């Protein structure tokens, strides 16, 4: 009796704690989304009624439109490049043994561990010296440097599940090393490649500091938000926030969907996995 009561209380406490935690994280985001549809100019209670005014207003603002477009360009480029580079790095780690492997893997993995302010400043100093400051491609290159770490981590995890015999088996069956890469390794990594693509896009889409440091006049959406905030409090902020939130969550959810998939695991002795 006693024990079952204690168990129930403990479970209640656990769920309660978890609920509070989620509420703490989600409420501010929810507030932004809710007030982005508020007719009032300033977020106040009571609610002034449903309105799409501020969403319409951000569509009409050419600077916000440009910033959104920039974010998409940078995000897409980052996703493509960092997935390609991340795959290359992960594959090198999987296939070859060489002396400087540990430094190599660390080199790819380390950028997210460096504080963004320092990374941003360092990149600013370096890029302005070589005359690449203030270009959209520069923002993209910096984002690739960070996102490639995540891409490599995801793809490496998948490659760890690739049976060591599979690639030699392909060679043995008449596939050149290049054909084995295309017909065996890439299809096997497909879920991880897709996940890496969307996660890199999300990393780039949300990144503020480096974009702010090196972007110059080319603003990405997060940079635009800060610049808006530095002026007067603008009701458009909430609407932008809601849009960014939806895009980011969508990207991460898609990435999750593919990292979660465990369909083609190593063949195990028991059938029907």
């Amino acid at each position, binding site marked *: 009796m006693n024990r079952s009561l204690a168990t129930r209380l403990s479970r209640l406490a656990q769920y309660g704690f978890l609920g509070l935690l989620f509420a703490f994280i989600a409420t501010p985001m929810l507030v932004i989304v809710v007030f982005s549809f508020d007719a009032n100019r300033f977020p106040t209670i009571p609610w002034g009624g449903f309105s799409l005014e501020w969403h319409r207003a951000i569509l009409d603002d050419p600077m916000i439109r440009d910033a959104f477009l920039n974010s998409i360009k940078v995000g897409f480029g980052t996703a493509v490049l960092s997935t390609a580079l991340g795959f290359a790095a992960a594959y090198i780690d999987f296939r070859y043994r060489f002396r400087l492997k540990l430094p190599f893997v660390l080199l790819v993995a380390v950028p997210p561990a460096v504080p963004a302010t320092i990374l941003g400043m360092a990149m600013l100093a370096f890029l302005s010296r070589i005359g690449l400051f203030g270009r959209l491609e520069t923002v993209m290159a910096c984002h690739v440097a960070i996102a490639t770490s995540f891409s490599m981590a995801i793809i490496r995890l998948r490659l760890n599940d690739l049976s060591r*015999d599979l690639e030699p088996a392909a060679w043995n069956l008449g*596939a050149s090393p290049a054909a084995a890469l295309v017909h065996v390794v890439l299809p096997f990594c497909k879920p991880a490649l897709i996940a890496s693509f969307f996660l890199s896009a999300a990393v780039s889409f949300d990144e503020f500091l480096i974009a702010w440091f090196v972007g110059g006049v080319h603003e990405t959406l997060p940079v635009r938000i800060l610049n808006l905030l530095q002026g007067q409090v603008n009701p458009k902020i909430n609407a932008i926030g809601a849009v960014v939130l939806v895009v980011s969550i969508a990207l991460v959810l898609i990435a999750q969907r593919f990292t979660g998939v465990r369909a083609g695991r190593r063949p195990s002795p028991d059938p*029907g996995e």
Partner: protein
Amino acid sequence: MKTPFIALDQLDKRYADHHAVKSVDLDIEAGEFIALMGPSGCGKSTTLRLIAGLDEPTGGEIRIGGDSMRGVPAFQRNTPMVWQSLALFPFLTVAENVAFPLRMQKVGTAERRRRALEWLDRLGLAGMAERNVAQLSGGQRQRVAIARALVTEPSVLLLDEPLSALDAHLRVRMQTELSRLHRELGITFVYVTHAQSEAFALADRIVIMSEGSIQQVGRPQDVYRAPANAFVAEFMGMNNLVRGEVRGERDGLLDIAGALGEFRVPSATPRPEGSSGDFVIAADRIALAADGEGLAGTVLGLEFVGSTQTVFVEIEGGAEFRVQKQQHEIEALDLVPGRKVRLSWNPQHAWLLPQPAQAH
């Protein structure tokens, strides 16, 4: 004989930390079923990988069909292999797995599908074509791996412990299947195994390896009855090795004395007195009796091997003998652990080990 189909010439493979294959010479005839055997780490799998081109030899040469394989990459050799892990592609269907080698050869879609289905049918997998490999049983996956290896109609099939993951019942069925395929196709099978039963059931010739070197090559029965050295005798399991020294010769038999007593053993060639007289006697050639002449020993235990049993006997003097007996003989003698027995055999059935080429 005609030129061998696969020739290994002083084949050598060194890794950083060990010498896996040491100067191996071996000729394999076209259409032969040959089994490479030995304990794990003896170099049999490495030899197979060298033939397939999955590893580069550090010395010597491999010729297939008379052509040197030096510098020929694995994907141009057409030496398909059935892997111990099967190495099926998990993201392809059964039919796509079997068609994979044809796809690499740029065979058209319709043609490669037709040939893949034909092979699936031939291996009793009709109707499984669209399945995912993970949905198949162990035996079915085994057949997919074999079909995939044979779909290009190669002239040699390499098999690396293909049956080791199957249970005993399936293993015997797959043995029959492999035997049938070998007969029907008439191609060369090179089969790596550590299981004596598989090699005996399937192979025309067996190659016994140890520590990277070939110990003996021959027909299974010959290797079993006439092992070339103590290693082979012990590896074949059902042989009892007796160590001794030649003392003389009488009536065409050698007198041999050792720690276990005095024995008489036939010899094809004369041996000087004092030279090595190690010989083996097969477990199924030994007679057991409750008393009388012969080696005295005590039954240690029994082990079932199909319809026969292996009796383990501790000989006075320390050695352990294995004797293979039918069930009814065991019962007649009432052999239980602790029972005293006498072991004897016809001297003609003993096999004198050839003298080692160099001293150990």
